[in-house]
């Protein structure tokens, strides 16, 4: 059972200093135009929330709907950290599949503060305390994973830099990306160390941006809509989770129960493959959540592109670059966009849509038929989306 992507739209990423609503509205209007629909045609609106933009950000579907003009459509607003956009897609898709509506608009947008993300919650929650007691920022966790790769697999900082070089070349071709300049390995190596072994150019920035999708039932779409959503995975980890997840102080204990067969990120992709009835061998391209360069390499192994420990070799081979056998992050990834949290997973699916329609221009992956977008919604909120082409 598939849901059809009728329209996709984005507002360029950046630090434009405008209210998040403006980015979301621009993306929503672009998606509606792309779908050949008007706003009153929309029966259901799902907003992916932002938690750093006050009350309007926390009820984002209502905020967007009010700005477009009330039509009496049904709405939902949701938050799942980095997985918010995928969660919003999942909610709209489920309602369409249930026959409760035929056409839905999914919107996410953010206006991000400068510098490190800082806690937004109460003084006793772990997100506050990890800053207060340890000074453990998000890049600190990415750096722990990166160092672990170096110790386990012999990866080097040059391997990590190769990811940035690859993604910057793709991003240079993407008009929606924030960073459009190609970056060299020397520039990565010369950028300041932030969290050893990760340097400034290994770590994704925080950005403003907006993305939107129009989803519809096949009955509603008729012969329109060449791209279908074949799976949305929103699985949690399996106890005991032996990876130190942000913002936790410790892993689960393996004293009572041995570690599960697959780590969390592997399970996220596996559930999506199972739902779609596809596997890594079917992929034409993938968009993965490169919060750091090293994390993109973790994803190669987690989504089954290569065996554990082989990812550095894979990126070095050029197979995951544009023009390679299986391009990863042909959009330019977070390396070129920076993260606009609630919009990012939606933007990943916008890229899959462009690629599967064959409209990605200079970034086009040849004969693209199946795309996977994977995302580490932290705090145990995983997400992955598989889109397929009917062509």
């Amino acid at each position, binding site marked *: 059972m598939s849901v059809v992507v009728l329209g996709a739209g984005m507002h360029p990423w950046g630090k434009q200093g405008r209210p998040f609503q403006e980015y979301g509205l621009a993306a929503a209007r672009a998606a509606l135009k792309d779908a050949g629909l008007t706003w009153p045609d929309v029966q259901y609106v799902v907003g992916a929330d932002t938690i750093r933009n006050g009350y309007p950000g926390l009820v984002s579907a209502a905020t967007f709907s009010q700005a477009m003009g009330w039509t009496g459509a049904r709405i939902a607003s949701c938050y799942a950290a980095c997985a918010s956009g995928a969660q919003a897609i999942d909610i709209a898709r489920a309602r369409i599949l249930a026959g409760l509506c035929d056409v839905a608009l999914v919107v996410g947008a953010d206006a991000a503060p400068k510098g490190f993300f*800082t806690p937004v919650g109460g003084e006793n929650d772990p997100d506050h305390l990890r800053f*207060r007691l340890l000074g453990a*920022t998000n890049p600190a966790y990415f750096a*722990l994973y990166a*160092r672990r790769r170096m110790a386990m697999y012999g990866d080097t900082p040059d391997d990590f830099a190769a990811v940035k070089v690859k993604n910057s070349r793709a991003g240079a071709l993407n008009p929606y990306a924030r960073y459009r300049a190609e970056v060299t390995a020397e520039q990565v190596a010369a950028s300041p160390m932030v969290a050893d072994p990760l340097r400034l150019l290994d770590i994704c920035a925080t950005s403003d941006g907006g993305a939107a999708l129009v989803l519809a039932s096949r009955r509603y779409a008729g012969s329109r809509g060449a791209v279908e959503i074949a799976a949305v995975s929103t699985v949690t980890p399996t106890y005991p989770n032996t990876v130190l997840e942000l913002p936790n*102080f410790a892993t689960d*204990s393996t004293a*009572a*129960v041995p570690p599960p067969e697959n780590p969390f990120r592997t399970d996220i992709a596996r559930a999506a493959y199972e739902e779609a009835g596809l596997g890594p061998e079917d992929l034409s391209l993938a968009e993965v959540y490169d919060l750091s360069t090293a994390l993109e390499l973790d994803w190669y192994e987690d989504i089954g592109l290569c065996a554990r420990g082989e990812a550095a070799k894979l990126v070095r081979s050029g197979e995951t670059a544009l023009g390679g056998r299986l391009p990863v992050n042909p959009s330019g990834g977070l390396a070129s966009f920076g993260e606009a949290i609630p919009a990012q997973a939606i933007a990943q699916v916008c890229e899959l849509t462009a690629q599967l329609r064959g409209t990605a221009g200079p970034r086009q992956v040849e004969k693209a038929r199946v795309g996977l977008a994977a995302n580490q919604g932290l705090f145990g909120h995983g997400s992955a989306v598989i889109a397929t082409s009917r062509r």
Partner: protein
Amino acid sequence: MWFTVEDDLTYLVGSRCADCGAYFFPPVAGGCRNPRCDGQDLQETRLSRRGTVWSYTNACYPPPAPFVAAEPYVPVTLAAVALAEEGLVVLGQVKDLTVDDLEVGMELELTSGPLADGPLVWMWGAAS
């Protein structure tokens, strides 16, 4: 209370499920978090004082508030340390060692030290 100091020795304080034996850090309440265990008896317990480095990093720039950075700022070193008996990996600041002194797999021992504004916190240090 996540740690305690006794006779100059620092101990992390976690929970242990009396039914299945799973450990938790920080301590938890409200029942065992092993999904196949109905245990409600979570006992406060001291964790092993020694472990091996799972991974490590540092903060080259002062972390934002609510962290209080020393002036002049000295990079905070962090280590995630695996405790064999508990099957846990526990994150902490590292005392008197930099990333150049650390290696994945090396042994560290728990100690404690003050934050820049005074309060004492657990820290990983060189094994004695």
